[in-house]
């Protein structure tokens, strides 16, 4: 019986002691945990052949407002911390052009405008990155409240000449890169 008591004693003591040992944990660290992925995607692509520009009734060869809900989706708007939009304009037409991109809110009010002047071909590809949020960027509210985009294309040259380059056209490319707070 002594042996039994002794065995039980050691077993239970071992379990109790082992279960009692936990190194100091600092749960407050959880408050410092930050999960902020940076996501990237193309936004808008606009392409117009020189023929369309020449055939336009006036200098304005394209003007269009369209719905764009990527930014004001709750998941994005509530989590966006900062980011940038990169534009790339390539002009292979024979005329200088002006492209304007405006961000619109629900009531079609203009929140932000970016204008691109690009020389007639041959000319380098124009690249511009616009920052939002952070210390120096434009207001993030522009992004959060954007629900539409206005594209405006203006011909600053003639409407008869045709570029000697193959397949002459104006192309606007754009992509966004935004950091989100998931936690």
């Amino acid at each position, binding site marked *: 019986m002594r*042996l*039994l008591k002794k*065995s*039980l004693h050691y*077993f239970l003591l*071992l*379990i109790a002691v*082992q*279960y009692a*040992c*936990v*190194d*100091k*944990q*600092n*749960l*407050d*660290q*959880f*408050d*410092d*945990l*930050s*999960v902020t*992925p*940076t*996501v*990237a*995607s*193309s*936004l*808008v*692509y*606009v*392409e*117009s*052949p020189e*023929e*369309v520009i020449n055939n336009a009734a006036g200098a304005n*060869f*394209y003007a*269009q407002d*369209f*719905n*764009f*809900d*990527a930014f004001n989706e709750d998941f994005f708007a509530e989590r966006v911390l900062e980011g940038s939009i*990169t534009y*790339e304009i390539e002009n292979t037409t024979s005329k200088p052009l002006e492209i304007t991109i405006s961000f619109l809110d629900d009531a079609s009010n203009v929140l932000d405008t970016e204008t691109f002047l690009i020389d007639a071909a041959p000319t380098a590809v124009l690249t511009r990155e616009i920052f939002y949020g952070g210390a120096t960027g434009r207001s993030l509210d522009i992004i959060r409240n954007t629900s539409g*985009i206005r*594209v405006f294309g203006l011909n600053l040259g003639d409407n008869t000449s045709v570029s000697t380059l193959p397949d002459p056209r104006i192309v606007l*490319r*754009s*992509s966004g*890169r935004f*950091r*989100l707070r*998931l936690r």
Partner: protein
Amino acid sequence: MNRKHFIFFFLLLLSTLIRAQNKQLLYDFVEIPQALMLNPGMETGYDWYAGIPGLSGIYAQGATSGLSVDDIFADDGLDINDKVRNRAVFGLGIRDNQSLTGQIEVLSGGFRSRKRPQDFYSFGIYGESDWINYWPRDLAILAYEGNADRIGERFDLSHLKTRGDVLSVFHFGVNRQLNRQLTAGVRAKLYSSILNYTSTSNDGYFLTRQGQNNLLTNILVADMRLRSSGLRALENAADEDVSEVTSTILGRGLLGGDLGLGLDFGFTYKLNPQTVITASILDLGFIYHFSDVDNFSLQGRAANEGVEIILPDALDDPGADFWQELVDEIEALIPFGEDTRSYVTFRPTKLYGSIKYSWGMPRSSFAQDCDCDVTATARANRNIYRNSVGGQLFVVNRPRGPQAALTAFYDRRLGNFLALRSTYTLDKYSMTNFGLGLSLQAGPVNFYILADNLLAYQNLAAAHTASFQFGLNILSWGDN
């Protein structure tokens, strides 16, 4: 309890209480009737036993491979963001997993046949929950870092593998001593699934690369499925009140849910009076899920370069909603499907095997070198050796392939009332897993307690795995 405390205790529970279903301390622990559940062909010395309802077998096992609570929450002065990044997001591989298993016996009993004393019948009901999640490495990296700085990198959707079950099991087993060397057994099981979810056959990838027209292309190729049953019934019950949830669980657990069948097989063979080999295969079975089924799928391929306005085509429809067209196009290419089709899941089949060598005869007058027969006196003398040493193999079928464990054990018997077992187990979760088990027989009352990975409990938060089991039975070695 605030959220972080809840998460801490959940992780602690996850990493310390429970593990991959290996019950190395209980397997072939012949003094404990519940060991019959691990080998229906185990040698049985008793004439009958009855588990105390709700107390005869309570078992919890948990495991995390590659990461412990201590790795993240230790008060070590390191930035938690560095620890999460280095030890979890980029430290874990797709074979690392987190698992929880729990079992509780509701009813348990067994008796020896009067007409054929070599036959021992056992039966019962137990509830079981089993959850496993493999670390979805690529999805974790995508969520933690995003895609912006990982242009050209594929995020593999097949990394998502997870499965959970809550079910009750009705079982009846027959154990027969075929001759002095061989005992064999079989157990039939009727599964009653309370809830199940399965998402183990996913495929596809997410990729961002340089675009063809625009600057970037996001490509999603998906073949993903999540199948579930019972969740809707519980959700509807939860909308009512707590008692409705209880009655739904009981209803589905008492054969009112999805049903399935399974079999266990096992044997014990004496190579000589002191050397024994055993093996068993458990849960060769399936469950047919047909009630409250909700299945979800995402299948297809889509490439997105944003809103495209191409003149002169865009001039034809000045009122076009380019954004909605883009959304509709993506949804058409990768439709999110929902259906209620029945499905079948297979139980995680387990395999045990062992070899045991025993020595040390007691000084009892009953002692004999035992090629024991099935008479009561002879049965009582079956396990008379004071010492046993041996090895065990355990393999369980998991969604990402079999998981194995090797165990060495030493048993010590003190008279007819106390049996002790110590084990050392080697598996993917731990290289230092020492366990200890005790079975105490006080008159007709049998009490047992088993716990493993004792060394790791020196710092509970750092443990990757542990299990704990105890139970209370009434049993008899006398003639019935």
